[in-house]
């Protein structure tokens, strides 16, 4: 179980390798990488709530482990100023079978989107900046795991 909140970029290939190597029970590894989309913006600033963030991400990972048989899970979330195309978030899960790996990775992302205290502020190409608004679709995505 691992959670990291950092300004620095990360290496998805190295993270996948570290997660899956050394345990030949693992048959399936799923990863999600979230990137800064570039349309109309020059960059994005990620603010978070130090202390609570790490706690919230660890709780989400614990929930995933309780729900699926996982050999491993990893959440990395960047903070600070990010350019278009930059990696923001990385989630990876490892399990014996693909269904558990897919579902748990999607579950972690859905919970992260509505439960982890991060806020995005976009800097527009027109010189203005604005806080990104939460999407109702994200709430719905989280709720479906509670049914």
């Amino acid at each position, binding site marked *: 179980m691992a959670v990291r909140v950092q300004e620095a970029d990360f290496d998805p290939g190295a993270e996948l390798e570290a997660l899956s190597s050394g345990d030949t029970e693992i048959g399936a590894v799923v990863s999600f990488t979230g990137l800064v989309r570039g349309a109309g913006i020059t960059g994005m600033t990620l*603010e978070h709530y130090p202390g609570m963030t790490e706690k919230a991400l660890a709780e989400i990972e614990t929930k995933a482990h309780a729900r699926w048989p996982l050999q491993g899970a990893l959440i990395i979330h960047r903070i600070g100023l990010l350019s278009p195309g930059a990696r923001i978030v990385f989630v990876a899960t490892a399990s014996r079978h693909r269904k558990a790996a897919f579902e748990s990775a999607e579950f972690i992302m859905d919970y992260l989107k509505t439960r982890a205290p991060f*806020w995005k502020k976009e800097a527009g190409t027109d010189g203005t900046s604005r806080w990104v608004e939460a999407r109702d679709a994200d709430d719905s995505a989280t709720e479906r795991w509670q049914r």
Partner: protein
Amino acid sequence: MQVMYFAWLRERIGVGAEEVSPPDDVTTVGGLIEWLKTRNDRYAAAFADTKAIRVAIDQEQADFDAEIKGAREIALFPPVTGG
């Protein structure tokens, strides 16, 4: 107790965190917000739409009915948008 603000709430109020001492009849998060609104126009404007406000007490999600007695750190912020 310490009250913390994030994202546009922090920007509108003008500080990220502050020590506050609400009167004894302020017992819930909702009450705390109503009391903060009376402090000045910045607070009143920031908290105009409380539907847009989320709460954590001592770094755990909470709601407006939650008791604040004994809380060390109350955080108020807009819905999260990470990921």
